[in-house]
């Protein structure tokens, strides 16, 4: 079985400054893969290039062996994506967004309606039946985004910060959904800032630093007997600040 996602030499520069620099990464089929990194390390840029939303300056992205940039139609059948902070059809309600997208995907009416109903119920969005997406809170936007990614039953989910701003109860729901998705043969790649979460729910992890993969492997390999947080701080060479200065804060 080919790898769920294989990135080879991805490169992207903005205004002469490299954002992603010759990044290569392999996500085995059936894995729950976590990407961690500092702000601006290149996680969102890499994921955008991986799914076909941002044109790379160089490099390849393949989903189950299908090149995203030369055979986009086939690759996109296999992909479900939750991008970070992009727009939605703001003037539709959550149910309408799902219906719209299902029909756009060519699913038939009854399947679309049934799936939309189930997704809204599971993600507790039924209450907001009459609310336009433009009125959704950040957490609700994440949840409807996740429903959008799941709707057509993809084989690989690429999720940018899926747990950001999601309440603790919904977060547990989302974790359970993703777990079942993996058990059913799917694969997941997600980025996150929360080390404890990645340590808990992912089986593989890669640390992205300055546009490159600093280390990758199973969570056990990367941790090597320590906490993921310590390994991370060591790897990215971050100095944890806050112990000195700011004297004026004391009242």
């Amino acid at each position, binding site marked *: 079985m080919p790898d769920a996602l294989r990135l080879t030499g991805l490169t992207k520069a903005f*205004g*002469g400054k490299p954002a992603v620099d010759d990044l290569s990464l392999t996500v085995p089929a059936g894995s729950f893969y976590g990407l961690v990194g500092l702000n601006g390390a290149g996680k969102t840029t890499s994921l955008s290039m991986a*799914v*076909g*939303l*941002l*044109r*790379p*300056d160089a490099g390849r992205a393949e989903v189950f062996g299908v090149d995203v940039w*030369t055979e*986009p*139609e*086939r690759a*996109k*059948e296999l*992909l479900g*994506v939750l*991008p970070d902070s*992009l*727009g*939605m*059809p*703001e*003037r*539709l*309600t959550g*149910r*309408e967004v799902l*219906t*719209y*997208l*299902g*029909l*756009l*995907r*060519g699913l038939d*009416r009854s399947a679309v*309606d049934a799936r939309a109903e189930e997704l809204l119920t599971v993600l507790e969005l039924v209450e907001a*039946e*009459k*609310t*336009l*997406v*433009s*009125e959704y809170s950040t957490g609700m*936007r994440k949840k409807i985004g996740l429903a*959008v990614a799941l709707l057509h039953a993809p084989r690989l989910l690429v999720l940018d910060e899926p747990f950001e701003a999601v309440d603790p109860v919904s977060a547990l729901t989302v974790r359970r959904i993703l777990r079942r998705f993996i058990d059913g043969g799917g694969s997941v790649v997600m980025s996150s800032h929360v080390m404890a979460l990645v340590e808990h729910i992912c089986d593989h992890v890669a640390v992205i630093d300055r546009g490159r993969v600093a280390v990758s492997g199973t969570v056990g390999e990367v941790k090597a007997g320590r906490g993921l947080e310590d390994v991370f701080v060591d790897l990215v060479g971050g100095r944890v600040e806050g112990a000195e200065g700011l004297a004026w804060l004391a009242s």
Partner: protein
Amino acid sequence: MAGVLIAMRVAVLRHSLRGQKAAYTASAVVIGLVLAGATIYLGFSDGTALAGLLGLWVLGWAIAPLIVGGGEVLKPENFAVLPLTPRKLAAGLLASSFVGFGPAIALVAFAALLPYAVQAGPETLVVAVPAMLLELAFVVLLARFVNAVAGILLRTHLGAAIVAFVWAGALALLAQGWALVAALTQRWGAKGPAVLDDIVGWLPSGWPVRAVDAAGRGEWGLAAGLLAAMAVLLVVMLLTWARMLRRRLTVKPARPRVHTAGRARLGGNGPVGAVLAKELRGWSRDLLRINHMWFAIVYGVAFCLLPVLVGWWGMAPYTGLVVLVMASGLAANVFGSDGTALWMTLLTPGAARADVRGRQLAWVAVFGPISAVLTVALTAVSGEDSAWPIVLGLLPAALGGAAGLAALVSVYMLIPLTDPHKRGANPLGLGDNEGQVSGLVYVMLLGVPLTCVPAAGALAAGLITGTAWLTWLTVPVGVASGALFSWWFGRLAHHRLVTHGPDLLQAMRTGKAASTRTVRGEDGVKRVLADFKLEDLPKKERTIVGICWGTGWLPLFPQGLVATGMLLFGQREKSWFLATYLGDFAYPVAIAMLLLGLAVYGTALYLPWRYKKSRAAREALGG
């Protein structure tokens, strides 16, 4: 406080003046200065004319949020947590609003009051100088004020329609105001226009002129009273604006009510049907779109029916056509105004075609019936029977042509705007590029008639030969050409969306157009690659290139080409063409202007070319 806000605004403007934006700004500044010069030239010796011109400037500032966008350089929300009273914040924001090219140009125009005052007696300058400054404060505050009022109104369906009525009515009056003047003359003879002059003179915009006049007559009390009245007006407006600001910052706007009876499902079948259903929801729920729809209708109706005031019905049959062109201009950036939601289309196989076709269908479904009803009803009422074959042929031609062209322009000339979910409390705040959107109206104004050429050809043939069946052939030709152009242009649009979709998305993410080049690889497959961007240029060169693009047209076209043409045809009357003032040197000067224009555009092309070359050389060296 005001000092800090002014410094902030200067910093923001400095950062935003880059590349395309610099070019756009330079163009606008040149046009503005020409208009300001014209105001001084036409107004400094004639009080009535000056009051009228000042009235036009004030009207211009009042509709500025529509023309150049209602965006705020400094957003009040950013200062909401500071311990400031709304009045202090309003005063500070107002002070910062004086920084910019717009107020500077207005000040140049209002300086016409100074030579006017000198003629009335140098001592009246004591009145003219403060009057000039008060007028400037008035327009700057007026633009903020109108924007705030429109922002509040644009939260309800009715409000969106009201805003459209006012703005479209004002614009139509600017274009067809002659009809009003003529109607008054018809009714009361020369007294009619004089009454109009009086009214314009007594509007606040004309108070500075009245004050200078009063001072010239030695009525210093009246002059002082008028200045005081302006000051009071300003204070009242400022206080009202402060109240609106406080409301905006503290009261969350009521949710727009959605008409979803029970669990009404999104209608439609298949991908195109889904987009059509989504778009129709947009036309009934998105208040900015509703505003645009009413704007097009009101503008078209007012534009074509104002001449009826003097009993001329000749334009009435064409109301539907004017509405169509205006509506297509406002809909020619559909992808840009939906912003990064485009990602959904990009990630759905085969969706690009459905997205374009569904939007075209929705636009035709909304404006087809409106324009058809207006056309049939007003042609019948007007009694212009000869217009029937013309409008019945041109209407389908224009409807299809506009639907095709709007799709094409939306993709090929996409203008990135602020994403709808990031616009916050100012529904008119569309981001850095909003001013360019009104330019699309002109693109459609030129483009839609071009798509009507086949129908117009049949019409002309019929009218010239006097053959009735040939004249009526306009109708089938119009239907065919409309269908052809909407199909063909739509096809170009969705193909482009497939090949360049990610680059359009990136443009909307960053607010800057992404440039690409298409290369054919060794395997014969065409690939789109990221290309050199103007943003890559060093800052100084980028600014120079921007200014060159923005100003080159001035020497090249009017002062060069047009002036040469006028000289060739013996037209030497002194006008604003420099060459017409120079007698024997007219030709050399016009040609020098031509060369200057070419040199300016040459510089704009040369600098990026030189940079690209040196970068390629560096890369070759560096491997």
